[in-house]
């Protein structure tokens, strides 16, 4: 059923895809976003991320990094311009079609958003339950996902029994267990020390090598220098491209 379900969802997604063969996973064209209180989060942002790329978006807090990611997974809507993810125009997606797209996007949050009363395993499996996977398929996918983030031995722990770094790794496992082609990480290292931060980045790099497109926001420029991936900078809602490497 899993196969048929993912097949179904991708076919319905592809129906809305504009030119086939387009290699852009994410593209933003002239996107602006102003919040109800008048603060300008994004101003005329243009961005294209190709499939299989790894991109950092950096900038001080309040510069619009989170807003940018929220536009990509449909939590916020652009006031102006076009947001296209995997061939879907986000402004046209609502209800179940938006849900179908979200199944193809993994999201990692700074505050992990783990469910406190469920174990590590249940937190990860929860995503698959929510997406309608069968019990057997869920069991089949759990171990590889936990192994990927190095937490197989903590499968039965509750989130409050884990360190911050481990909790963040659980949330990465949760984001990738549905094998999405796009992974968004919003300040994944914001609450972590240098060692744990680097471990998280290493996991994200590993995921990138198997073909997942990764977009990471961070205000930690040392991480960017270490990881040797392109980075863009957001300042006051304006995107400046590529900042100096190394």
């Amino acid at each position, binding site marked *: 059923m899993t196969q048929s379900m993912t097949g179904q969802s991708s076919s319905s997604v592809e129906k809305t895809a504009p030119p086939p063969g387009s290699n852009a996973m994410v593209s933003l064209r002239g996107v602006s976003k102003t919040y109800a209180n008048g603060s300008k989060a994004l101003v005329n942002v243009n961005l294209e991320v190709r499939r299989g790329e790894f991109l950092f978006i950096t900038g001080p807090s309040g510069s619009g990094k989170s807003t940018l990611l929220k536009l990509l997974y449909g939590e916020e809507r652009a006031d102006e311009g076009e947001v296209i993810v995997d061939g879907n125009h986000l402004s046209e997606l609502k209800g179940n079609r938006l*849900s179908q797209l979200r199944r193809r996007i993994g999201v990692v949050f700074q505050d992990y958003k783990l469910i406190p009363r469920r174990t590590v395993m249940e937190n990860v499996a929860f995503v698959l*339950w929510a997406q309608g996977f069968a019990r057997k398929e869920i069991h089949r996918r759990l171990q590889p996902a936990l192994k990927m983030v190095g937490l197989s031995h903590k499968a039965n722990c509750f989130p409050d029994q884990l360190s911050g770094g481990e909790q963040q790794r659980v949330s990465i496992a949760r984001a990738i267990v549905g094998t999405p082609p796009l992974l968004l990480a919003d300040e994944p290292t914001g609450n972590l020390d240098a060692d744990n931060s680097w471990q998280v980045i290493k996991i994200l790099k590993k995921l990138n090598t198997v073909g997942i497109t990764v977009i990471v926001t961070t205000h930690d420029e040392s991480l960017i220098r270490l990881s040797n991936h392109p980075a863009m900078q957001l300042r006051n809602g304006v995107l400046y491209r590529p900042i100096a490497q190394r």
Partner: protein
Amino acid sequence: MFQFLTKLDYLLRETLLGLRRGGWMNWAAVSTVTVLLFLFGVSLQASWHLEGLLNRFGSQLEVSAYLDTGVQAADLKSVVAAMPEVAEVRAISKEEAWANLIKDLGMSDINGATKQLEGNPLVDELKVKAKSSEGVPALAQKLEQMQGVDEVQYVDEAVKRVAQLNRGLSWISLTVITLLTLTAIAVITTTIRLIVMARHREIEVMQLVGATTSWIYLPFILQGVVFGLAGAVISWGLIAGIQHFLTNLLTQQPEFVQFLANGLQLSPLRTILLPLVLLGFGSSVGVMGSLFAVRRMALR
């Protein structure tokens, strides 16, 4: 089929989880529904019973003509049957009537009773059925004027009053049940909304990972249905228990009371209908309550 099982697996798990999290709030919801359905069931049964009792007073179309002493019912039967407004005539001899009365009064020695009263005190009777209810008063008058007829009785004001009372009671119970229905829906709404709030983190994550709205909220709706069904089962148990108790009580009474109580016996159809109606009503109330609870969140 397989997909259906997967859904069922998920729905049952999540519904049970919701019920476990609900704790004592579950009981608030279930007991309100129980009270509602209990009163509903009792009043429904009462109206069925009153209806049955009214039928026992005799059909609205029937006129009883009591004959003069010594006149044989069989003699008059053919004359009455020839009347244009008469549909059917049944003759009841005084012996037959006496035997029935003795039995109804719970006496066993018919000869002793007859001897005590120095003979059978009753008269022969004709049960005449009119073709239409409008024709009943005219027919009654015509029969009264016949030779050999002493007295005529038909469903009169008294019975009509009882019918009116029945209607009045129905209105009162309808009002009470409406109010209680609203209360039950409100309590279920509150209960489920509290559970939804307690799980808002999970719901947020579910939305972010692409769970559809119906997938997220169906377990809550099911939870409302469970409240309704549980209330229905408990209230039906209570009603059945009380009925059993009353029936036991009645069998110890003289046969005359039992005779009256026979009118209270429900037809087999209605015996099945009652739990079905309760289950249906209970689950609708549950669905309504839970729909109200998730509607606001789901519409966002």
